[in-house]
């Protein structure tokens, strides 16, 4: 029982990372209505870019984050027109076309990653990695590894920035309009093509930054992309597809669950539990905890 506060804290810290995994994914779904099967692969690519930049330049990964964001934002921005074409194609249901198409993209990126980076795992060293904040009070103590705390703060920053952008800026209002009704939004002067490009760019950028974080806090291999895709799916389904405010809660819940499972059950059961839980959630409440998903 002594462990419980630490377990909860760990869960929250991990939940922070999960927020960033899922929030871009949910945003893109809400606006463009595609389920991007490749989300985990973007995370993986970002992680490796962070790894190599760190090796060549020597900068701490947290300092590299903005650079990684901009590079991947550009990639996403440039890729979006292709996806847009797939989605607006005359034949077929856009949602399905998008999903199978991103499925193909996922295979391609994964193959690319395996080709270039090989099979073994990497991890990015950081100045923060070695320190933690230790809180002691008699028998009771809490360890807060700095690097994880930084991850949580990063997640909070991203969430707040996105929230601000969506609610307070003109651009954000346009995004919300586009998410609700593309045709009307266009009539109101929202440039849907450009907005979609920006949103997709933001999504890829955030995912890539998340990858850097993950590689710093944990480690990354090219094969792990799939695992993060599953996590993203899980969180977004739990939160409600396209319902952004639900993401932080769902992510924290997942983090807590994982933390509790690892300590009180066994690490190998955690993934199993996640998958089973995801399945059950889909059966009981596909619209998410708050019932506001698509």
């Amino acid at each position: 029982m002594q462990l419980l506060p630490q377990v909860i804290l760990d869960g929250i810290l991990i939940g922070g990372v999960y927020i960033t995994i899922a929030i871009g994914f949910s945003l893109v779904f809400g606006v463009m209505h595609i389920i991007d099967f490749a989300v985990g692969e973007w995370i993986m690519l970002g992680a490796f870019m962070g790894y190599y930049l760190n090796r060549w330049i020597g900068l701490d990964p947290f300092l590299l984050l903005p650079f990684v964001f901009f590079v991947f934002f550009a990639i996403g921005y440039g890729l979006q027109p292709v996806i847009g074409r797939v989605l607006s194609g005359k034949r077929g249901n856009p949602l399905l076309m998008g999903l199978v198409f991103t499925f193909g993209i996922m295979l391609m990126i994964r193959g690319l990653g395996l080709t270039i980076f090989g099979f073994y795992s990497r991890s990015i060293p950081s100045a923060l990695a070695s320190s933690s904040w230790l809180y002691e009070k008699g028998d009771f103590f809490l360890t807060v590894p700095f690097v994880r705390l930084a991850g949580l703060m990063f997640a909070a920053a991203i969430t707040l920035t996105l929230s601000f952008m969506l609610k307070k800026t003109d651009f954000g209002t346009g995004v919300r309009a586009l998410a609700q009704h593309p045709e009307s939004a266009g009539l109101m002067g929202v440039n849907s093509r450009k907005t979609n490009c920006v949103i997709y760019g933001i999504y890829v950028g955030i995912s890539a930054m998340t990858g850097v974080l993950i590689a710093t806090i944990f480690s990354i291999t090219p094969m792990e992309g799939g695992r993060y895709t599953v996590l993203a799916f899980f969180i977004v389904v739990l939160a409600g597809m396209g319902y952004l405010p639900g993401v932080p809660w769902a992510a924290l819940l997942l983090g807590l669950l994982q933390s509790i499972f690892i300590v009180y059950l066994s690490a190998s059961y955690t993934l199993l539990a996640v998958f089973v839980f995801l399945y059950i959630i889909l059966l009981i409440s596909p619209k998410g905890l708050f019932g506001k998903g698509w």
Partner: protein
Amino acid sequence: MRPNVYLWLIPLLLILVALPLVFDSPFMLRIVTETIMWIGLAITWDLLAGYTGYLNFGHAMFFGVGAYTTAILMKHAGWAFILTVPLGGLLAGLLALVIGVPTLRLKGAYFAIGTWALALAIQQLALILDITGGPDGMRLPPFLNPAYFYFWMLGVVAGTFALYWVLLERAPFGLKVRAIREDQEGAMALGINPTTVKVQAFVLSAIPVGLMGSIYAYWITFIDPLSALGDILTDQAVVMAVVGGLGTLIGPAIGAVIVFAFKTMFWAYLSDYQVLYLIILGAAIALTVVFLPNGLWGTFMGYREASRTFKNGLSIRPRIDETADTEKAPKGEPDHV
């Protein structure tokens, strides 16, 4: 469906049966056996995807159930191979029945994610449990006889193909399945219980895969969670079916032959670049979806079945009928069940 095409299959079948008697190369026989297996995997996936309109991204779970059934029964309980195969198929069918009823209620994309999650869960289970050998997998008693397994696989896949053909082209089942894919509410108004039909399709797509898994286990003599329950099984079946042509029986078969032939040549000549294979696989499906949504066979025959799957297979929202004219969907439009 034009019957002439299917008539060509009978001489083909005879050729396939005679193959081991003519060719003496065990290597060739193994290649053909695996090709036949992939044909089976692709057409079973297509039954649910192309005909019924549900994308099962966890197809591999049935394969794994069959494989592990045979492995466990032969290794730990000393069963004879022949007895384990029907049980492998049966258990796969049972799994489909049990998860089918709740999961098939889900709308398109959620069904895809749900089956995907379930298959991953089962894979995790195989990694954790002792009886399945964990990550190290299981070794079966060796039995080297390529022709034996060739005929097993040929029998199962040919039988499946024939059964599917009868059910889909001659029996009411095919019409019902397509009706549900096109318009579930409309089908319900005509007396069709969608859940029953969908579960039937699901079980029909699972049993042969379980049988193939059982055969695979004894044939390859070794299975582990990656080879018997891995994503790559499902992924390849999906690519084969889509590239070949959804909603037909011949399409996925052709897709399987092409993709597998390509993979084998890749492995033979470019084994250094094996991971390139993934890239090309991904590109193949991405390009097919964009340019040839009906697949190679579908486009060749002018079919439009795949478009229907793409149109209906992954909808989450109730569809507004696009073929109606100016009337918009009435407010009382029922949600998908």
